[in-house]
């Protein structure tokens, strides 16, 4: 090829070029073919490997996803003993697709009106002729009704199963549980506060365990409901709380609503008086004032003497007592007979600054710390908080707190003076007890035991006593503020109690809103006559369930206070 003479063999240069080109093209084609084959083989290999993989580890075609574990559409809510309080069930829903109806519309309308009389024949007929695609006829229909509708044999009537929230205990603990809206999202109470937990697929398999005990809740609701009916009160609230852990064992607000049909509730029924409502709770505040004074060194002991005239005139106002002493009286007597005059003087000695600091420390100036969203903010005199307001707050007028907050205060006072935030969830690994915050000294907490026991043994709270259970507590009768004036006749009565007083374990707070006098109360509407018996009855019912054994031979150390009580009056 490398011939020097182009004349002899003279390949045409175009041919030469062609050979080179062909070779190049061939090589390129080989490359492309090889590449194509590799791709093809690779794809086949991937498919084969995938098939092998599936054969070895994969699921077969008939596998039903999600049925290997029962996960409800929304998590259950159970009480502390595992009793279900809220569950999601598959409910029957009856609906109609008017466009798909093929039968005689008038006959169907007649049959529907007969089966579901909440709408008339004409309304059903109009519905069927409206031409709209879809109407709900009944949600959560009974099986009998579903069967009857199905028997009509009309393809335009749709019968389906839909997840629906059911509260098996109906109105029990309704305000704690709250309810869900039509899309199964929490709209109140625990349902709203823990909506994420209850609806998240990762967590909803495990039920939400509340600190509520349904038996205690039932006892409290029943006794309180009886009292509310007996005294024709417009409302009532009650809280039972564990002193040491802050767990709310029962919390109720009456009138109750039925969370199964939240739409039927009136605003009054929807209102949670225990956490959202704030009330001036009157003399139930006095133990706090006294404890503050004791801790601040203002009051040295139950024997300290104050002058208790029939009427105390201070800062241009008159302070009255329901049981006026008209003589010098000891701190023990002031507590026992719930003397406003005595307590006002103690509060005056304590002073505004210290009182504010104490109330702040106890958590009375903020919203109550609980997981629920329905939380009321305490009402205080604010900028008008002067010396006279300090005195009235000392005996519980002029400051409005939620009943739960009051229970929290008593729990703090009797848990050796240590504050634990209240909780609606059961204490356990998921909700451990946070370290407390010391508010009162242990000594003050101890001294208050016998003072409050004295109130029930000999003072205004006699009717709250349940033999053997050593209840101690304080009655509170507050005049209700109506249109800016304190009413002389309309009261809010409350009782805050602790039992057993020799080793406090549980707090119970009950409140009646506007109770009326009856023949049995001899015309009185004070707390000692209407709410105190509720406490007695409730405690004798719930204490055995809570493991508090009745003992007639145990009492707190009454020797600390009895010497300072003047007995001749009795």
């Amino acid at each position: 090829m490398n011939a020097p003479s182009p004349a002899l063999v003279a390949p045409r240069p175009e041919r030469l070029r062609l050979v080179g080109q062909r070779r190049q093209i061939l090589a390129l084609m080989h490359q492309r073919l090889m590449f194509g084959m590799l791709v093809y083989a690779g794809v086949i290999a991937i498919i084969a490997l995938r098939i092998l993989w599936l054969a070895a580890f994969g699921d077969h075609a008939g596998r039903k996803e999600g049925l290997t574990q029962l996960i409800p559409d929304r998590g259950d809510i159970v009480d502390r003993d595992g009793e279900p309080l809220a569950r999601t069930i598959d409910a029957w829903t009856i609906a109609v697709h008017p466009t798909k109806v093929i039968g005689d519309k008038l006959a169907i309308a007649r049959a529907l009106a007969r089966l579901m009389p909440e709408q008339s024949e004409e309304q059903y007929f109009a519905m069927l002729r409206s031409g709209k695609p879809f109407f709900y006829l009944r949600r959560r229909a009974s099986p009998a009704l579903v069967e009857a509708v199905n028997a009509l044999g009309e393809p335009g009537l749709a019968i389906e199963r839909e997840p629906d929230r059911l509260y098996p205990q109906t109105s029990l603990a309704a305000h704690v549980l709250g309810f869900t809206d039509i899309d199964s999202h929490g709209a109140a109470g625990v349902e709203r506060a823990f909506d994420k937990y209850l609806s998240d697929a990762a967590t909803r398999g495990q039920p939400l365990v509340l600190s509520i005990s349904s038996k205690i809740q039932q006892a409290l609701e029943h006794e309180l409901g009886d009292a509310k009916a007996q005294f024709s009160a417009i409302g009532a609230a009650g809280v039972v709380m564990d002193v040491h852990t802050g767990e709310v064992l029962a919390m109720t607000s009456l009138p109750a609503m039925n969370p199964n049909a939240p739409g039927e509730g009136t605003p009054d029924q929807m209102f949670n008086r225990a956490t959202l409502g704030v009330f001036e709770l009157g003399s139930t505040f006095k133990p706090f004032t006294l404890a503050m004074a004791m801790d601040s060194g203002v009051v040295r002991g139950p024997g300290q003497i104050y002058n208790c005239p029939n009427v105390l005139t201070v800062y241009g106002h008159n302070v009255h007592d329901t049981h006026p002493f008209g003589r010098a009286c000891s701190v023990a007597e002031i507590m026992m007979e719930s003397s406003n005059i005595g307590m006002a003087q103690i509060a005056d000695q304590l002073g505004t600054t210290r009182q504010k600091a104490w109330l702040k420390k106890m958590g009375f100036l903020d919203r109550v710390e609980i997981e629920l969203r329905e939380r009321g903010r305490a009402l205080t005199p604010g900028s008008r908080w002067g010396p006279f307001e300090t005195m009235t707050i000392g005996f519980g007028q002029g400051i409005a707190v939620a009943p739960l907050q009051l229970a929290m205060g008593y729990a703090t006072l009797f848990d050796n003076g240590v504050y634990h935030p209240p909780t609606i969830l059961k204490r356990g690994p998921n909700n451990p007890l946070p370290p407390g915050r010391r508010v009162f000294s242990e000594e003050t907490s101890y001294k208050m035991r016998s003072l409050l026991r004295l109130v029930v043994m000999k003072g205004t709270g006699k009717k709250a006593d349940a033999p053997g259970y050593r209840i101690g507590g304080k009655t509170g009768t507050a005049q209700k503020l109506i249109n800016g004036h304190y009413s002389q006749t309309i009261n809010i009565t409350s009782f805050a109690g602790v039992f057993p007083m020799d080793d406090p374990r549980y707090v119970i707070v009950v409140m009646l809103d506007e109770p009326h006098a009856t023949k049995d109360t001899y015309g009185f509407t004070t707390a000692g006559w209407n709410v105190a018996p509720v406490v007695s009855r409730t405690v004798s019912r719930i204490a055995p369930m809570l493991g508090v054994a009745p003992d007639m031979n145990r009492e707190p150390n009454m020797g600390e206070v009895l010497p300072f009580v003047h007995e001749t009056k009795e």
Partner: protein
Amino acid sequence: MSVRNFGSLAMVATCAGAALGCYLVSLRVASERAQLEDVETKIVLAQRDLRTVQTEIGTRARLSQLERWNAKVLALSAPAADQFLSGSFELARLAQPQRKVEFNAPVVLAAAPAPEAKKAPLGEPETDDAGAPAPVAPRALLHQASLKTGTREVPSEPANISPQKTAGSKSTALPATAAKPAPKKAVDKPGLAAAHPGKLVDKPVLATTGPVTKSVRLAKVDPLAPLPEKHSSKPVLKSSKELRPGR
């Protein structure tokens, strides 16, 4: 047709067989798994049914409903504080029969038949002996004396008397022999008396509820019996010591 051709065919057949075998194993595993899943599904469905039934029962037997039934029909109430017992002994005490004092029967027994019937065997020979001193008496006196000393201690010196005093009291009851036997008793008695002071105190209480007739009868006999037997007091006292522990 060489063997090599068959060799490749055999190779293919072996590969096919192995593949088929593998596939069969896999198929078997898959079918087992499918069965297992069916069972799991059944379990879940059963759980769902259980849950439905539980919910229904729970709803029908809700606490407010139970409370209503209780208010209307059962009328059960919470136990009162005194209905709780702290232990098994308190429970056993509840089963103990109540002892009631019946006024009719004991009076009849105490008044008429009991003393007379019992006087006949024990008392008659004594009174006869006391009335007329008989030589056969000593052995009968031993019995009488023992009974007497017993009864004397119980009613006359109830609780406040120490063991030494009881010894002294006997000596005063038997004035003539008082001086000599006193030290002997003082030595002997403390041991016995120390063991029995509780009994001596307790007995009168029990005796009042129980056998009233005995004490009455013996008290009548006692003051009479020792007087004529002053001279033979020593053996009497010894016998009293012997008998007392038995009582």
